[in-house]
């Protein structure tokens, strides 16, 4: 999966163009876990939506396994930050739907959905509706919903952002466990540097927007399999964290200043 000099621009209400991302280039190898970290409003979610095909870039190309992306990227599974489950479907139906719409029989889809629900630790919750679940449980359902389609690429937009710290850790470990069993290329967006280092093979950071760009790319030298809580205690973790943070810090401050200026201007 590759982003080649991708720029994304939006036409604003006053007619001027707003360039959110400029000339971003990123390669993700097959089976590689890449985390993108950047200050708020830096366009990292925008970049993710470009790889999903939800947004068309103003310039540049996205290549998925060598083929330029021209429409929705259906080889990718997308885990949203906000609640994206279908509230009118039961947990089982929510997970099974991805298979059903592509022609799998209902019985077979439900069978597989049941297996996936057990895998994400929600066996016995099949008949519940999303509103009856906690935030963490809903994320588990969403994970099963995406993974049941066996996508080759996993796109994640701060998926654990709305969760509390403990649940985040548990979900992170669950994600790593599932990813270990079947390695997919992962593009994981977060604003949490600790989370990024603990999870990923590579950490990429973006500059503050507008016209944000990729300004750093680090390989994470931590051994796998990892436990998110334990890996944070290793000296390598701290060393890398300090190194990335020294570069990220100024961007975060810039990001704050810009949003403060924009806030004062509006």
């Amino acid at each position: 999966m590759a982003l080649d000099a991708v720029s994304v621009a939006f036409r604003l209400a006053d007619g001027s163009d707003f360039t959110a991302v400029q000339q971003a280039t990123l390669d993700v190898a097959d089976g590689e876990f890449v985390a993108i970290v950047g200050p708020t409003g830096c366009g990292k979610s925008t970049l993710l939506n470009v790889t999903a095909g939800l947004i068309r870039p103003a310039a540049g190309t996205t290549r998925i396994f060598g083929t330029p992306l021209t429409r929705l990227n259906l080889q990718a599974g997308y885990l949203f930050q906000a609640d994206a489950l279908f509230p009118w479907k039961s947990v089982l139906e929510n997970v099974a739907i991805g298979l059903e719409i592509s022609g799998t029989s209902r019985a077979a889809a439900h069978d597989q959905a049941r297996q996936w629900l057990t895998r994400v630790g929600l066996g016995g919750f099949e008949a519940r509706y999303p509103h009856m679940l906690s935030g963490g449980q809903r994320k588990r359902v969403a994970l099963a919903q995406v993974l049941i389609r066996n996508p080759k690429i996993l796109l994640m937009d701060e998926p654990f952002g709305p969760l509390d710290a403990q649940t985040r850790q548990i979900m992170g470990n669950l994600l790593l466990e599932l990813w270990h069993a079947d390695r997919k290329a992962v593009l994981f967006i977060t604003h949490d540097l600790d989370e990024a280092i603990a999870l990923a093979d590579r950490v990429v950071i973006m500059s503050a927007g507008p016209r944000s760009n990729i300004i750093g790319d680090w390989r994470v030298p931590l051994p796998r399999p990892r436990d998110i809580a334990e890996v944070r205690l290793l000296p390598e973790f701290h060393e890398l964290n300090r190194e990335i943070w020294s570069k990220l810090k100024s961007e975060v401050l810039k990001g704050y200043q810009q949003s403060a200026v924009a806030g004062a201007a509006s």
Partner: protein
Amino acid sequence: MNRSLVLLAQVAVAVVLLAAWQFATTVPVSGTATLLPKFFFSTPVDVFNRIVKWLVEGTIWRHLAITLTESILAFVIGSLGGVLIGFWFARQQIVAEIFDPYVKMMNALPRVVLAPIFALWLGLGIWSKVALGVTLVFFVVFFNVYQGVKEVSPTVLANGRMLGMSERQLLRHVYWPSALSWMFSSLHTSVGFAVVGAVVGEYLGSAAGLGYLIQQAEGVFDVAGVFAGMIVLAIFVVIIDWLVSLVENRLLRWRATVGENRLA
């Protein structure tokens, strides 16, 4: 407060009101004059006797059946139209824009003024009442379905797309359930309007139905008959409303709030 206590209090309210009514219309306060003239207010006992008489003679059933038929037809036709057109407008923005002023105009019109037209066009039978009910039900359902389709969560929609849904599948798995949930949440209003349309239509010109019954009684200053008709109508509506609640709880069981913030 526990349930039986609430029930007891509810019964007590009815007893006190009925007793006050009976007292005010039958017990003389100065000479032979009562607090309220019996001629204009009747008495609970008379009204009760009238209802019993209707039930015993069996005349009331025919009227009830006709009002019920009209209400059901008005509800079904109005809902069907509202769902189809609401869906169409929401998916075709240009159509919605073109018809917007006309929809507003039609909705602003007090429906009672349409009754004479419907009576001329469709006669004094049930269809003129059904038509009146349809004009009321249609707009409630229409606006709700329109809103339901428009306000589908963008995240849920994007999720459907990323899961590989085609436009048709999005319609079936995302837009449709969302629109229906909005329609069902207005079920009480639309069913109520169907009954209003039927009864008002009957009242303005017909040969049968609860509205007719009340209008006839009023024509001969039969106050007991008017009250009896009103009470039968009220009980009729309460039963229908209860049935709607049953249907609603079944259909919207995926929603958290159904029935929780309503007066139980």
